[in-house]
């Protein structure tokens, strides 16, 4: 559909036999200017935010220690150490969240496209997915707090954070899966059925692989998004300056949490760590975005 718009736009030049009135020209020009202006206005804060992060954070991350050490045993004002503990926490929480949400999300997507149809349950599910998409991260965190900590009596931990992130990640994966499954051509399914292949095998071996690149892209983007969430880590886990690989016990750092802690450290060391963590987080998220692009190119079905 995109190519369809390119050609007509060239035809939009006024026909020779009829001149366009000045009023219409002015309106057209005005609209063009406004649209360009809107874009310019939007680019300014983006570049500004990124510039701030890079300019302030870059000096921290060029130090090899930043990627290899934790802040264990360092006082707030002492320079040195690194964000390893927080990077580990962010990746671990993201990983566990992904492991839980991906199957659920994909299955719901499959249900909606392949099984649900127009049934009442399918419509309800679709509606609920919409609602889940809009659940604020702080509400997700409070829900997990109410369920995991208060009701079930577990302590606050990295795993609780991962659970809250699951709530934020699932709707995104469902949506992507749904969209991707919908554009799988029906001929593929029908051909498979014609060969006597069961429906579930058709889905697993034909439909999903065809849609896989799109689904993986969605997963990567969703992961990138949840790893930057701050609200769940505020409520659901304590900060630890040391490396903690145990998601179920004890405080655990993550990059957003590290930033939130160092925000309260008025020294130069705190400033460096704050913006260092910010640029690290943005880097990781960009990396995941890039990975998504690469993976989807790599796995994309070869079109003739």
């Amino acid at each position, binding site marked *: 559909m995109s190519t369809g718009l390119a050609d007509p736009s060239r035809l939009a030049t006024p026909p020779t036999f009829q001149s366009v009135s000045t009023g219409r020209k002015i309106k057209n020009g005005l609209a063009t200017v406004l649209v360009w202006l809107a874009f310019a206005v939007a680019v300014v804060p983006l570049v500004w935010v990124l510039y701030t992060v890079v300019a302030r954070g870059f000096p921290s991350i060029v130090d090899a*220690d930043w990627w*290899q*050490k*934790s*802040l*264990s*045993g*360092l*006082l*707030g*004002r*002492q*320079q*040195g*150490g690194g964000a*390893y*503990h927080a*990077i*580990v926490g962010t*990746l671990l929480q993201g*990983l566990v969240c992904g492991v839980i949400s991906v199957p659920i999300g994909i299955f719901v997507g499959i249900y909606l496209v392949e099984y649900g149809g127009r049934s009442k349950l399918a419509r309800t599910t679709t509606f609920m997915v919409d609602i889940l998409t809009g659940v604020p991260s702080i509400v997700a965190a409070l829900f997990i707090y109410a369920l995991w900590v208060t009701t079930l009596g577990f302590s606050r931990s990295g795993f609780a954070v991962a659970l809250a992130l699951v709530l934020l990640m699932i709707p995104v994966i469902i949506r992507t899966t749904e969209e991707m499954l919908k554009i799988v051509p029906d001929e593929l399914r029908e051909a498979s059925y014609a060969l006597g292949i069961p429906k579930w095998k058709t889905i697993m071996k034909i439909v999903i*692989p*065809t849609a*896989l690149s799109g689904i993986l892209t969605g997963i990567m983007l969703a992961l990138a998004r949840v790893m930057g969430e701050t609200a769940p880590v505020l409520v659901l886990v*304590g*900060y*630890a*300056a*040391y*490396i903690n*690989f145990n998601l179920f016990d*004890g*405080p655990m750092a993550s990059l957003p949490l590290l930033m939130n802690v160092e*925000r*309260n*450290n*008025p*020294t130069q060391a705190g400033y460096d760590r704050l913006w260092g963590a910010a640029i690290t987080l943005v880097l990781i998220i960009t990396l995941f975005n890039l990975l998504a692009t690469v*993976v989807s190119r*790599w*796995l994309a*079905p070869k079109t003739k």
Partner: protein
Amino acid sequence: MKIQRHGAVLGLVAASSLLLGACGSDNNTGAGGSTSSATAASVPVDCGGKAKLNAEGSSAQKNAVDAFIQAYKAKCSNGDLAYNPTGSGAGVKQFNAGQVDFGGSDSALKAPAEVEAAAKRCQSNPAWHLPLVFGPVAIGYKLSGVDGLVLNGEVAAKIFNGGIKKWNDPAIKALNSSANLPDKDIAVVYRSDESGTTDNFQKYLKTASKGAWTQGDGKQFKGGVGEGKEKSAGVAQAASTVDGAVTYVELSFAQDNKLSIAKIDTGSGPVELTNETVGKSIDGAKIKGQGNDLVLDLDSIYGTTTAGAYPLLLATYEIVCSKGYDADTAKAVKAFLTVAATDGQAQLADAGYAPLPKAFQDKLLTAIKAIA
């Protein structure tokens, strides 16, 4: 589809995570710097016992405990301690439940429930309060052309509850006859999050304001004027951006944000906030507890009229068992607390706390020694 490719992607992810898992380190000894031995030496430390102690509680003493841990590791190479700054309430709860070896708390155990629970946890021995960490709270302000502002409890209370609205109010003038006070609105900044600093500050105002502060205390600011920012860094940063702002904040934050710090007139002349004036006030503190249970009578600090004693302090306790630890734990707890009361003090001033004066230090060491 290309199963191999999926495999390759998975492999790549697995490989990179392994790589990441392999090279991390908690070891920062090189960067940490050696702890100075300013107050060290004279007290021998009997290292050993449980290798990793657990403690939890007040976030106000977090940085001090970090300094203690650094000193402890330097002195006792096999010792370590994990301090989880979850708040005083959680610290007491975890201590009483036997989850941690000692608790950090901004306030004494409440009688009877908490005291009894603590005694039960210590195998029917009383728990002791050891006030190891004192944090001076500054009344920081930004007012161009005015240095060395002097306030007293009553005027401070009126500033923070809206009774005084202008910097050139006669009440402020009376204390600062030589200062050139501008006709400017006072912009009060307070902590918007729940905080022990706010609690202590309001308790101070209650005690020292001669009745001008009627709002009570608690972890939320009740003055009803001004505006709140989150955390110490937030209030200090906000106060430093506006001329005419005043706030209460831990000393280090006031210094780092280049706020001027008000002197407090306790009745015997203006007192500047220094290690000496704070030490004097700690020395003068009355102990409410019995024997080695060093519960402080905070009113004696807030209400002090001793010349040269700075009254506005945040005192936080380590809550320990007097008896009832197993031998290993007792040994390690004693070693840690001894280091904290001696070597550990050297780093405190830089971290925004007040080092213990000698006499008080001896009191603490006696108590620590008596732990069995």
